[in-house]
């Protein structure tokens, strides 16, 4: 009977360690003169205007199982509205949804018909493609000296944008308890325009990773 707590101890230690690694870390203040540059860097990885993007999308689910789809996204950062469709490589549309003030699912083939899937996908798109609004609540230097901006959202969550040397951008979404919910990694662009590689990692349940490889992009004018 007494063996159980001993067996659980390493697990408990591991959970505490992971928790410690994933929470918000204190920032090192930077010279105030750098604020504009830091803020510009924090907004750079996001869409500058309305775009149509086509991605090869790789999903990795718990256990390492991988799947691939093609994602089409028309997103407008000014309105924070978007329409997205996921389809098989063979062209069969699995999911089609539109978000403006509300999220409308036009088509969802099982297992993509769960409301949580639509909400999770919408959150991923907003996090990876739309710059957080307003002024940052904090800015400075974070891990590896990377410039960081932190933005508080209306729902109480916090978005953190880090720009690492070499051009890799990390976007992190923290819950109201400062727990890490999602993580986005944007590879440095090889040419002007939207990011060519985006990786979204969600720590919720079920956890998953999405890897987006840009196939086509088109800047769209005002409607």
């Amino acid at each position, binding site marked *: 009977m007494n063996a159980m707590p001993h067996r659980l101890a390493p697990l408990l230690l591991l959970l505490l360690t992971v928790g410690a690694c994933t929470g918000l870390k204190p920032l090192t203040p930077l010279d105030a003169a750098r604020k504009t540059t830091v803020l510009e860097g924090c907004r750079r990885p996001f869409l500058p205007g309305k775009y*149509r993007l*086509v991605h090869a999308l790789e999903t990795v689910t718990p256990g390492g199982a991988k*799947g691939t789809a093609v994602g089409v996204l028309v997103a407008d950062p000014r309105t924070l509205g978007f329409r997205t469709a996921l389809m098989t*490589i063979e062209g069969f549309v*699995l999911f089609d949804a539109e978000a403006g003030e509300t999220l409308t699912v036009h*088509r969802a083939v099982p297992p993509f018909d769960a409301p949580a899937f639509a909400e999770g996908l919408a959150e991923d798109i907003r996090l990876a493609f739309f710059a957080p609004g307003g002024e940052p609540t904090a800015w400075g230097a974070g891990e590896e000296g990377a410039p960081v901006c932190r933005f508080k959202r209306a729902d109480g969550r916090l978005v953190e944008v880090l720009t690492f040397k070499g051009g890799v951008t990390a976007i992190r979404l923290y819950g109201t308890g400062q727990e890490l919910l999602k993580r986005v990694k944007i590879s440095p662009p090889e040419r002007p325009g939207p990011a060519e590689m985006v990786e979204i990692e969600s720590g919720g349940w079920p956890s998953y990773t999405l890897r987006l490889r840009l196939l086509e992009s088109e800047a769209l004018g005002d409607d």
Partner: protein
Amino acid sequence: METVIIAPVSKHLKTCHAGPRIESGTGFDKPAPAGCKPGASSPILDSRLRGNDDGDAIRIPVIPLFGLILLLPLLIAWADSWDGLREASRRITSLEARFVQKKTLPMLTKPFVSEGRFFFQVPGQLRWEYDRPVRSVLIMHSGAVKRYLRDPGGWREDAGASLTAMQMVLEEIVNWQQGRFDANPRFQASLSADPEPRVTLVPREPSWGKMIRRIELTLSREQAGVMKGVRVVEDERSFTEMDFSQVRLNRPLPASLFEKVE
């Protein structure tokens, strides 16, 4: 079975099926449309080769006509009836083709284009390979479906949720390749001949109809038993078109094509 090229002679022919459709399950052709003489076989000769309505003398070269009569069952009848489709497909033991796939969506200003190769081997082995823009291979072997994707680390097996849906699609394609267009009870199949031989599949169940409005399979006039194109219509503004080219029939295909990704 040999590939039959009918283009040189078929331009002198037209069918009497401009309009009537053969519904699956009826077993009989519907009556000929107005303008077709009663008793005429479905395909008829045009006015250059038969007597006109005024009873003018028939001016038909004997040898071409003889050849034509011999070829008729192969050239025309194959796409005129379910039996014809099945019979023509029975002569195909393997098929390989290139394809261009165009996906049209209201969200896209121009279709999203993919290209690849398609292989079929009786009784039910398929390899559906995309070369660009996303390299992937879908293999159906002994009823089992596997998909492989190429990433920087090489080929890896795909275990995405869409694979289940694709199993059903591949089984359907095997039915089509064997001329069993009316085999799936979920779809109402109809056959029309004008402007091109075409099988149209419409879901019987409303729940399926929400996903796929219809599937149109355009058959080749030039190659008996061969599909020229597939159009899957999700709605009038969302559809997938696949056009086949460089179709080669009945060449021996290596078994590994349906067993291994490379």
